[in-house]
């Protein structure tokens, strides 16, 4: 069994990676003589590269016979998108993008107050530190009301199982008032040497108002 010179040349180039045209490959694969030549060309290659088994055996007929009863394999091919599907996809993407842009601009739109502030900025004078420290920030009633609100909020959140130890501690510590005289008396006690005899770090006296 042999093939024409043209077919042999095509088979030779195909085994070296040059893919023939579809029609040519169809005719080669359907031609039993061409398939036999293809097998022998590879046998020669295997012999040159010392890849032949110790004992030669041609399995192609056995395997073809075994596969004759097998259902033809068909791999699922990825579906190509139609023009209509591409258009719908583009429209959805464009809509999402437009909504995102509008939402962003709405959030960033300046309020009337901030617009006025932008147009006529008020001169801000930095107050002296002593004035800030001495100025009553909140009236006592209002402060007490806010503290109660904070505590109620903290308890409510705590009842829901959330970790609110830190805010609760802040609220409580904010309510504790330590007279300056007591703080001044506690400082020297804390500065005494401990049992091991090591010197504690110096504690600075609180500033007097």
């Amino acid at each position: 069994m042999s093939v024409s010179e043209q077919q042999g040349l095509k088979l030779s180039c195909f085994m070296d990676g040059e893919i023939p045209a579809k029609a040519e490959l169809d005719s080669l694969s359907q031609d039993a003589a061409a398939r036999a030549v293809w097998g022998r060309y590879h046998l020669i290659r295997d012999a040159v590269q010392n890849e032949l088994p110790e004992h030669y055996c041609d399995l192609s007929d056995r395997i073809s016979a075994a596969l004759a009863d097998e259902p033809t394999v068909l791999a699922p091919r990825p579906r190509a998108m139609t023009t209509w599907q591409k258009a719908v996809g583009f429209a959805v993407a464009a809509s999402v993008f437009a909504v995102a842009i509008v939402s962003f601009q709405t959030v960033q739109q300046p309020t009337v107050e901030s617009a006025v502030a932008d147009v006529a900025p008020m001169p801000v004078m930095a107050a002296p530190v002593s004035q800030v420290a001495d100025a009553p920030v909140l009236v006592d009633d209002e402060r007490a009301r806010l503290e109660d609100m904070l505590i109620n909020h903290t308890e409510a959140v705590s009842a829901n199982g959330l970790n609110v130890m830190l805010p609760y501690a802040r609220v409580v510590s904010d309510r504790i008032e330590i007279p300056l005289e007591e703080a001044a008396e506690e400082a020297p006690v804390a500065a005494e040497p401990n049992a091991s005899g090591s010197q504690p770090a110096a504690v600075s006296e609180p500033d007097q108002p």
Partner: protein
Amino acid sequence: MGDYKTGPETDAELVARVQRGDKRAFDLLVRKYQQRIMALISRYIRNRSEIADVAQEAFIKAYRALPNFRGDSQFYTWLYRIAINSAKNHLASQSRRPQTASVDGLEPEQLADLAGQTDNASPERLLLTAELKREIDAAIAELPEELRTALLLREIDGLSYEEIAEVMECPIGTVRSRIFRARDAVDRRVAPLMET
């Protein structure tokens, strides 16, 4: 294994054809790789008839699994793994097979099977194998020098057609023609042995 030994472009084309339902394209893959696969399996299994059976089983498994082959690895690498697994499974099934029968009543061939020394290939077939190798070597040695050089640069050194053209200082078309003529000349010596 270098790409030039397997031709990944060729395999990809054939695999795509099989996946579209072309069984003949799978026959081309079988003819291309059967000797290498049997050489591989023979490293695991000594019994010669079992080598052929396991190789056939590996190719059939590969055919059934081809719809799931996505080309992430080269086809030959994938086929190689299937063949090794088939050989290992075969060995495992052999080791699980109960050896309860007495050897007294067995024929010499069955005894040889048990010892793993069997050779179901006929003496003619063994002669053919040795003769095949000898004929191929002799045919290559007798090729005109430019044909032999082109063929060996391709098959042993793995050069592309472009590289061979550069080495041999000739057009690529001449390289194609020389390699084909070399294969054709060797094939004319081999083909009569295959048809006996």
